[in-house]
């Protein structure tokens, strides 16, 4: 059932840390086969929203429900198997190599063909062969980001949540990542991408949500996607 998640419904989501309200009554829906670009100024609550959708953060009120057809998917190991996250931090062990990190996560996700999948993903993200056996702590920021992306995609998640995925990677890497995301959307994944890089999002995002001071200021879908100029205009109008 979790392999068929086709919608993530966010209803009245509020999150407070002490007296600070980080998210205020956010309601929106993410759909399969769609990439939502979540934009907004620093401190708008984008990372917190992504954290709640990933199940790592509990909301103060409101709910996130995951649907497969008409059935709700319960929170637990099965749901987490369907979610892939690329966050600010890499979730990689510095003392292990890229191959060892991916092998560890493949075991954690109980993947039968983990080694083959890891090798294919490392090829896809463009990590050089000679680097794959070195400890991750010796990698550049861009290399770490590539391996972190491979880790997020390793278990073929149906819900892909990425927080600033274009940070630290070069143009070639950014183009490759955009192609990877486009393929994920074609496969029917639910994709939510937090990014300040509107150029990279142009052409791949068909859903834009603008957060400002914890509130959802704008929520729009467009079948043909958004150009960079359109994204900038939306950002300037609703986020500044």
């Amino acid at each position, binding site marked *: 059932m979790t392999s068929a998640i086709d919608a993530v419904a966010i209803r009245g989501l509020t999150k407070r840390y002490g007296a600070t309200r980080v998210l205020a009554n956010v309601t929106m829906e993410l759909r399969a086969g769609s990439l939502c670009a979540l934009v907004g100024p620093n401190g708008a609550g984008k990372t917190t929203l992504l*954290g709640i959708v*990933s*199940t*790592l*953060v*509990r909301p103060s009120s409101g709910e996130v429900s995951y649907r497969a057809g008409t059935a709700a998917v319960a929170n637990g*190991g*099965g749901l*987490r*198997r369907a*979610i892939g*996250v690329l*966050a*600010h*931090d*890499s*979730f*990689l*062990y*510095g*003392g*292990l190599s890229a191959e060892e990190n991916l092998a*560890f*996560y493949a075991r*954690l*996700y*109980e993947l039968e063909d983990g080694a083959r999948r890891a090798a294919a993903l490392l090829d896809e993200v463009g990590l050089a062969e000679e680097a794959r056996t070195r400890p*991750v702590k010796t990698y550049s920021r861009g290399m770490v980001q590539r391996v972190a992306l491979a*880790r997020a995609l390793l278990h073929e998640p149906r819900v892909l949540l990425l927080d600033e995925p274009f940070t630290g990677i070069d143009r070639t890497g950014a183009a490759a990542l955009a192609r990877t995301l486009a393929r994920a959307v074609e496969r029917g994944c639910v994709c939510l991408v937090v990014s300040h890089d509107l150029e990279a999002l142009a052409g791949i995002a068909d859903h834009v949500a603008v957060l400002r001071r914890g509130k959802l200021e704008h929520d729009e879908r467009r079948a043909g996607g958004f150009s960079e100029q359109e994204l900038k205009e939306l950002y300037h109008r609703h986020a500044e």
Partner: protein
Amino acid sequence: MAWKDLRVELRSREILFTMAFFAAMVVVLFSFAFLKESDEGEMVAVAEITPGFVWVAVLFSATLGMARAFDREREGDTMRGLLLSPAPRTALFLGKAVSLFVLMAMVEAVVIPLCWFFFAAPLFAEPLPMLALVLLATAGVSVVGSVFAAMLMRTRARDVLLPVVLYPILVPLFIAAIKGTSALLVGELEVAWFWIRFLLVYDAAFAVAALWTFESLVIE
């Protein structure tokens, strides 16, 4: 989980060497600090207070180890990567506790013989109950320590706070360990087995509490 932690640790040996060296230094220094005159007129270490030093050395080195073990999960925020996986959250906790147990056991394999040597204390006179005592005390420290270290992982003053919150909880465990070891040194087996049973109950109670609360401690 445990195997991954141990593999990373065996590569760097950072935590293990720190714990073992610290514990050994505690034992050596205290062996020169507490002396008494023997029947032959020589100044020798006081064997009767050996149990205290064994477990003080273990406690302090364990605190170093557990803080550092969870620091590793902070470095790449790998704890969140683990929490995102389908693995049961209790399994993450158990993996951490097991790896800490193994590291502590390695340190005790150094500390206890050192105490036997420097204090001339008959720590190996009753090997089976001594082994039970050590294993149960180590398990208890691993379980309780893992929970509190996880709880404080994202706290800024965690290095200071960990001993402050952890030691009061561990007081009953260490009283039992010290009393049990003292009883073994003087051959009071019944007393020793009482404290071993106490440790068994303590470990069981805290293991249940830890399994029950771990997830709520690590999820924001």
